[in-house]
């Protein structure tokens, strides 16, 4: 064991601070270690000063004055309590006295409760309005889809272009998907990580046109790039066919 541990023990060597095992180990170590012996001496010397501080107790001057002051405060409190009792002729009187004391607190609690109820109601109303708006939006959307996208006019080709954050559907009236070469990486990532476009938009589109296949524009890809995609994203082949 290092000296550091023993040095800590040397500082904690007053009765009851170390267990007998620790004391024995410490004593053995001190016998063989001169620096720890030296430290023990210095701690003992400092201990003498601390001892003198322990022995010289601070003196409370005029203790009666403090006692009198405290007793006066206590007595006045006790007599006030007694007065309250004396003035209330019966239990009903006591109750009234207590009620008058706590009526302020009761009023505070009631005001707080009223505010809490009002707040809660306004929150519920807000939620209902939100839900209604949402329902209206969904209904409008469904109706618009029914009218603008009849099955005969469903899209059969997509041209995709990309931004830094997402792949955007530009046109949906062709037989296959054309991906701009510059956006390819991002498109692959999007589909590979099952983000919005990969999972939802393409699947929905395919559901509407089960016979449709999604292609990349062969003019934008060379054979090495296609191999690279197949190698880095094998799962993508389930979703996309590359010409």
């Amino acid at each position: 064991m290092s000296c550091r541990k023993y040095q800590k023990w040397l500082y904690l060597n007053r009765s009851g601070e170390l267990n007998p095992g620790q004391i024995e180990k410490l004593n053995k170590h001190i016998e063989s270690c001169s620096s720890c012996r030296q430290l023990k001496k210095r701690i003992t010397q400092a201990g003498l000063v601390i001892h003198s501080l322990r022995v010289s107790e601070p003196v409370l001057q005029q203790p009666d004055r403090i006692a009198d002051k405290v007793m006066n405060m206590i007595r006045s409190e006790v007599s006030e309590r007694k007065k309250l009792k004396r003035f209330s002729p019966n239990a009903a009187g006591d109750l009234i006295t207590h009620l008058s004391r706590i009526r302020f607190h009761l009023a505070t609690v009631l005001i707080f409760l009223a505010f809490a109820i009002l707040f809660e109601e306004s929150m519920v109303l807000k939620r209902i309005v939100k839900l209604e708006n949402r329902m209206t939006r969904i209904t409008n959307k469904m109706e618009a889809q029914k009218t603008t996208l009849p099955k005969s006019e469903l899209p059969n080709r997509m041209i995709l272009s990309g931004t830094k954050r997402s792949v955007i559907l530009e046109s949906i009236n062709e037989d296959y998907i054309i991906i701009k070469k510059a956006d390819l990486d991002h498109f692959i990532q999007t589909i590979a990580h099952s983000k919005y476009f990969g999972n939802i938009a393409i699947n929905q589109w395919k559901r509407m046109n089960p016979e449709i296949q999604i292609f990349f524009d062969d003019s934008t890809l060379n054979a090495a790039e296609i191999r690279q995609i197949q190698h880095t994203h094998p799962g993508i082949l389930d979703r996309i066919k590359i010409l």
Partner: protein
Amino acid sequence: MSEQNDNLIIQCREGDTGAFRKLMEKYQTYVFSVAFRFLCNEEDARDIVQETFIRIWKHIGRYNFQQKFTTWLYTITTRLCFDKLRNRKRQRNLKKIHETEHPESGPDIEKTFQNREIAILITRFAEELTPKQRMVFILRDLQDLTIQEVSGILNMPVHSVKSNLYYARKNIRTRIEKWEKCHEL
């Protein structure tokens, strides 16, 4: 002794102010001693004595007879001392006692000097300690309480008490040595 205390406390609970005065006379010097050693200021320590006993009177119904009365007393005292120190720091008027405090005049001038000497030494040696280290040192080394008692009063695990004590003693030893060197020169 504890049986006598218990009787006094039971009487206090029944509203006996005489019994409370006896209890106060018995223990006010202990409270003063801890408060003075911690705050190093006589006026503040007297305030602590007053506040401690008023608090004891108010909450005597909450006293648990399983616990030692002195432990409860010291717990209240130490909490008030910590609060006082915090307030003092807030007010930014923590003055070095040996620079600012002047002995009061009056018949107890010797006692005042004795207190002043103690305050100067404690301030000098324990100046750099954190409030916790300082309180642990005062309760263990100056009030001579056991580690377990200190742990109960400060609501601190025994190992934390020992750790605080170690750092306090180490720091104080260094300061004592420096002080002794200065005196030799």
